[in-house]
């Protein structure tokens, strides 16, 4: 089989892949190709028909398809080839990409640089250890969203939602509006990981009760789901006997977290972070495999697509620079998570980095009146106070490039500290 050469190969035509490809093309990379598994570009935005996207980037509220259309239109304008219906089978450490599609068959590309932009997946039932029978009627919230919004199918009539992530909240409203009855939203934690806006506009607007500190303790039904029981949990998230509430329902939607989809990355030998489940990257979004970059939800799960677009444009520019000038040399600064902080990205930095660097992380819990602090060799080098840090919202600290040269040590630690 003949092997084709391409300077830049982008895997995934969701918001991350599109923004990365557009940025690379705009800096002059003409030999590039975007591969997409679905039959249309746009990624998960295609099924997110609700509004609220683009407030930061476009200063207006768009629906998901409208946001995606802007990037798709720009990609078309720049004549960026997007090959849909094409599944990438493997990526090698030498950036050889094998893919397959019904129209082209098996294809192999040797790429100068690869950008991983495959997005994330929902945590499935099997990973939640829910008790009970294996009946029909249990879906991840995103699967239900696809059924309703892209395929015009209703998954059920009486619905309970487990987990209060944003997709679950959005689906509580969607199912209600499209004619189903949503009985409850059940969250094991003492707080929701969803946005306040969604709690108010998706649950409260429709009088759907939110049970915090509760989880599903029984699932009943032979062929189809017939009902569930939920119970209150203690501080160790163990069910408290005698607190059962029973619901008759035919559908249970799971909205229990998202995990970056890194099967291809692993095959390429990319080192993953246990904290983010995404690749370990430097400030150029380059992974541990030279010339392989990662951005968007495959790197770490975002709350806002606006941030995905921004991050991915930076990754696209960096990949273009790599294609032109080669590797940037070894990183000399390490970034680690301190108290109250999970999954800081990037994990490695070049001391001679020329641009300011956004350190992105998730708070490990809810912290009021606290400050995010960056320390190096016992010295405090950056502090940002906030009225609240919550796990539902990614936090960002901007590290000035000139600060890097003056660092007393080679390890940066990001933590959250209470202020009085």
């Amino acid at each position, binding site marked *: 089989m003949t092997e084709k050469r391409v300077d830049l190969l982008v895997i995934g035509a969701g918001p991350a892949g599109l923004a990365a490809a557009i940025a690379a093309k705009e800096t002059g990379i003409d030999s590039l190709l975007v591969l997409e598994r679905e039959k249309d570009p746009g990624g998960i935005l*295609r099924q997110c028909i609700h509004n609220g996207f683009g407030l930061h980037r476009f200063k207006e509220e768009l629906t998901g398809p409208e946001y995606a259309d802007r990037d798709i239109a720009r990609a078309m304008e720049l004549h960026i080839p997007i090959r849909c219906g094409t599944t990438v089978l493997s990526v090698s450490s030498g950036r050889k990409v094998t893919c397959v599609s019904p129209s082209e068959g098996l294809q192999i590309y040797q790429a100068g640089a690869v950008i991983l932009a495959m997005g994330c997946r929902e945590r499935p039932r099997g990973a939640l250890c829910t008790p009970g029978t294996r009946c029909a009627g249990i879906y991840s919230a995103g699967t239900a969203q696809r059924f309703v919004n892209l395929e015009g199918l209703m998954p059920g009539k009486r619905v309970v939602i487990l987990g209060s992530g944003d997709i679950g909240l959005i689906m509580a409203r969607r199912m209600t509006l499209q004619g189903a009855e949503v009985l409850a939203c059940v969250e094991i934690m003492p707080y929701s990981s969803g946005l306040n806006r969604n709690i108010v506009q998706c649950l409260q607007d429709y009088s759907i009760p939110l049970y915090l500190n509760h989880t599903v303790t029984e699932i009943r039904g032979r062929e189809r789901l017939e009902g569930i029981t939920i119970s209150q949990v203690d501080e160790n998230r163990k069910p408290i006997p005698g607190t059962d509430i029973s619901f008759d329902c035919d559908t249970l939607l799971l909205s229990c977290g998202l995990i970056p989809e890194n099967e291809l990355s692993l095959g390429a030998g990319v080192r993953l972070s246990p904290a983010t489940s995404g690749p370990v990257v430097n400030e150029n979004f380059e992974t541990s495999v030279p010339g392989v970059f990662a951005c968007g939800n495959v790197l770490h799960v975002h709350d806002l697509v606006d941030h995905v677009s921004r991050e991915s444009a930076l990754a696209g520019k960096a990949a273009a620079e790599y294609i032109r000038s080669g590797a940037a040399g070894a990183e000399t600064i390490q970034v680690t998570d301190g108290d109250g902080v999970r999954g800081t990205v990037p994990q490695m930095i070049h001391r001679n980095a020329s641009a300011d660097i956004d350190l992105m992380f998730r708070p490990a819990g809810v912290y009021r009146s606290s400050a995010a602090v960056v320390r190096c060799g016992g010295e405090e080098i950056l502090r940002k106070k906030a009225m609240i840090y919550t796990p539902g919202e990614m936090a960002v600290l901007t590290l000035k490039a000139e600060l890097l040269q003056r660092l007393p040590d080679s390890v940066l630690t990001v933590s959250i500290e209470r202020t009085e």
Partner: protein
Amino acid sequence: MEKVITCINCPVGCRMTVMLSDAGDVLSVSGNTCPRGDKYARQECMLPLRVITAVLPVPGSPTPLSVKTASPVPKDAIPEVMRELSRVRPVLPVHAGDVIVKNILDTGADIVATRSLL
């Protein structure tokens, strides 16, 4: 009368208490930590507004059409707007931005397509 409202402007999510007169006018807002909360609480008490999005089946298309109200409509109108929309059957082809229903139920808002179906 007293009304409790959760602010949606930022992650703090202030729980605000709004005092209303018998006529329904806002007398005071408390519990907010910034002026945006005050403004939001007053709007929510006087006339809460929402953009509605929905999917409509389209004859001859396996994919439904996603639509939205081009501007926010009163929250109370949501059930009626959805009932009205359930009777609407758009005709192919549809382009993103096309008006599907003009001034739905006299809310002043058009229903527009948010995607194309060709």
